[in-house]
Structures are given as structure tokens and as C-alpha cells.
């Protein structure tokens, strides 16, 4: 164990990277930047779609909640890797016009990034939708009825009464979905996007310093995790609802 630790060569991070982008430290930080950019962009998409689908599932009637349920089941029951390959390899082939444009007009890096964002966004939206739905349902039917009785229409009831409270209740599960999207973004390494775990593999392949590379990247993922948790604890404290234990139901 001791000899193993002594055998690690950390100077590798100050040597020039094989692709001429600078040192290997910079090489890993580029990966970190892609991981964060991919996760945050996909998260915004997931939040918007997830909110719409989640709200649909709480609407009266059968058609709209049914559509929401189909969305959730579809994206929850196909593995993330398969979804990514469908976005990246299959959709550009089978969609006429748009697919050809995607393959010809965008450079490879942008193709990888767009596929990654769409995949992670639509995948995570199904989970966000379930959280939004359970947040709204936890409020009780009285709130909706009271809003309607006061003369608000349904969109107003959602916008002014249900959603502001529901979002505050579901901040903790949304935080863990955000942590999941960061971890899931590692799957984008399979289509060649130069995010953190892709860079770790490249570094290992070109320098044979696998352990140094994996240790550094694992620590970076740990640091991202801790940072997100500290920020979310702050957000939770600020938005905590009076009357709810720790803001969580």
C-alpha cells in the first residue's frame, strides 16, 4: 500500500497533453468544464419539460394526465445509454431534413453536445415530472378548490397558488436529481464528448498513469458533489416553508 502510494507520479499533471491543449491538469479541467456545461444545460431543459409534464399529470380529465404518464413511462423504462445512442445515432438518420442538417451543418463536438443535452434533459425530465406531480398532490385538494372558488382560472391557480409552494417543497429531491444528472453526464463519454470521465480515460490511455488520472477525476466528482450539496442546503434554508418540517414533506 505504502509503496503503491509512493509509486504514483503526480508530476504527470504538469506535463503537456497529447493534443497540445496545454498541461494534463488543464486537460482535466476542460473535461470538468464540459461536465458542468452539459449538466447545467440539460438540467434547465429537464426542469422545463419536467414541470410541464408534471403539471399535466395533475390536470383534471383523462387525456392530458394520460399523455404525461406515457412520457414518464417511456423515458423511465429505457436505459440511459440506449436513449443516448438513439438520440445520437438513430434520430439524425430517420428524421428527414432536420437529421441531414444535424449531420452536415454541426461539427462533431456540437453534435455530441446537443445529443447529450437532449438525452439527459428528456431522461431527467421524467424524474422531475414525478417530483413536481407529488409536490402538487401533497398540497391537498382544498387549495385548488379555494383558488377556483375565488374566481381564479386553472392556469392562475397553478401559477399563483400550487406551483410556488410545490416547488419549495420539492427542492431536496430536485437537488438529488441534479446530482444524478452530473453523474449521468459521464455516459456522454461513450459518444466521445470530452467530459470528465472521457478525459480520465484519454489521460490513462496516452500516459499509462491510470491511477493518478482516476484518483484525480474521482476527487473532482466528489468536489462537485460537495459543492452542490452546500449550495442546495443554503437554498433550502432560504426557501424553507413555515409549518413544514425542514421544508420537506
Amino acid at each position: 500500500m505504502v509503496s503503491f502510494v509512493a509509486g504514483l507520479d503526480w508530476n504527470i499533471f504538469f506535463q503537456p497533453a497529447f493534443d497540445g491543449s496545454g498541461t494534463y491538469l488543464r486537460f482535466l479541467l476542460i473535461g470538468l468544464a464540459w461536465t458542468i456545461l452539459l449538466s447545467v444545460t440539460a438540467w434547465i431543459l429537464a426542469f422545463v419539460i419536467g414541470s410541464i409534464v408534471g403539471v399535466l399529470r395533475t390536470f383534471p380529465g383523462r387525456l392530458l394526465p394520460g399523455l404525461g404518464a406515457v412520457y414518464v413511462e417511456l423515458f423511465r423504462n429505457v436505459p440511459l445509454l440506449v436513449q443516448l445512442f438513439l438520440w445520437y445515432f438513430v434520430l439524425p438518420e430517420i428524421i428527414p431534413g432536420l437529421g441531414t442538417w444535424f449531420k452536415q451543418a454541426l461539427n462533431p463536438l456540437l453534435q455530441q453536445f446537443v445529443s447529450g443535452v437532449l438525452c439527459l434533459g428528456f431522461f431527467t425530465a421524467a424524474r422531475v415530472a414525478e417530483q413536481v406531480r407529488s409536490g402538487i398532490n401533497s398540497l391537498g385538494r382544498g387549495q385548488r378548490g379555494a383558488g377556483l372558488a375565488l374566481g381564479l382560472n386553472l392556469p392562475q391557480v397553478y401559477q399563483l397558488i400550487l406551483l410556488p409552494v410545490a416547488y419549495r417543497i420539492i427542492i431536496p429531491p430536485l437537488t438529488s436529481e441534479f446530482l444524478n444528472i452530473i453523474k449521468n453526464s459521464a455516459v456522454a463519454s461513450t459518444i466521445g464528448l470530452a467530459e470528465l470521465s472521457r478525459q480520465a480515460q484519454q489521460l490513462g490511455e496516452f500516459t499509462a498513469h491510470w491511477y493518478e488520472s482516476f484518483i484525480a477525476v474521482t476527487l473532482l466528482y466528489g468536489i462537485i458533489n460537495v459543492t452542490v450539496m452546500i449550495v442546495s442546503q443554503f437554498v433550502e434554508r432560504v426557501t424553507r416553508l413555515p409549518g413544514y418540517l425542514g421544508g420537506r414533506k
Partner: protein
Amino acid sequence: MYQFDWSSIPGALPYLWQGMLRTLQITGVAVVVGIVLGTLIAVARLSKSSILSNLAALYVSGFRSVPLVMVLLWFYLLVPQIISSLFGQPGLDIRLLSAFVAFALFEASYYAEIIRAGIQSVSSGQVSAGLALGMTSGQTMRLIVLPQAFRRMIPLLLTQAIILFQDTSLVYVIGLAEFFGVAYNTGNRDGTLVELLLFAGIVYFVICFAASMIVRSLQKKLVS
């Protein structure tokens, strides 16, 4: 319009079936080892000894903060080295063994959290009653708390197994061909990647959707 060509699927079905068996094999090993190890970790996490409970917490949060892709790559790096230093060079399938170890240890951290919540959902009066009857705390845990906790946890444990079944497709990153890997390789070889990927997606959907329906009806039965 895209011309679909499904012709390479019928001939590939035996290989796809072999791949599916491998997928189920990895899932099965990870579920069994994961639940056993997860139970031990959950009990350690709740133990009075602060060393044990901190170690268990470290295990759980360590595995849960790293992407599964990295965990698989880590064990594909570590397992061959450990095996060769212990046994020399045996004729084992090193990729499969790495996948078994990675999934079992990784899933244990997820199962541990489910099981811990299950144990905590058993009311403390049950523990007091067990101790009052003269049982040791180990006996109380084994004979009174765990059976009730597991009964409540069955739907969650099964849902986690469905997620795990989907996640096994990620062994693609260490070049192991389970169901998804076979589908991808076949499509790549025959120039029918579009059809094979769609086929794989449909198969996963049908299996996982059916399984989650069964879990849901089971959940209703357990609640009533």
C-alpha cells in the same frame, strides 16, 4: 424517407439471447450480493459504535458521489491487478468478473440506503419489546426488525433491481458484450445500427415496463 432494414435481427436472435442471459446474470449477482452487503452496511450505519457507523456512511456516500461509468472503469483497472497478484494469470473472464464486483459493491451502497430507511420505519416499540423479552440486540434485529423492514421494502428493492437491470448496459464502457453490447456490435457489423438500437430500446422498454407494473400491483397488495 429512411428505409428500415430489419433483416439482420432474426439471424442475430441467438446471440442477442446469449447477451440477455449475461445481462440477467450480472443483474442477479448484483442484486443478491448488493442486498446482503447492503443489509450489513445499513446495520453498521445504525449501530451505536461511531467507528462502524462512520465507515458505513463513508462507503455509502463514496460510491454514491461517483458516476457508475467511473466505478466500472475503476474496477476494470483494479480487479485484474488484484487477481494477478493473488492467483497469477487464471483463465477467468476478467471483464465479466470486474463487472460483477463493480455492480455488486456499487449497488450495495444504494441498497444500504433503502434498507436503512426500512429499518428506521419499524417503530422503536418493537425493539423495546424484543429487548424486554430478553433477546439480545442482534436477535431483535434479526428476528423482529429485519423481517418487518424487508416486507415493507420489497417494492423499493425490486424497483432498484429494475434500475440496475437497465444500468448493466453501461458495461459497454469496459467492452463487455451483454444484451446491449451484442445489439450494438451486430448493428455496427451489418450496417443496421438504427434498427438494432431501436430493437434494443423496445426490448428494454417491454421488460422494464412489465416489471414495474408487477411491482406496482405488488405494492398495492402489500399496503392493503
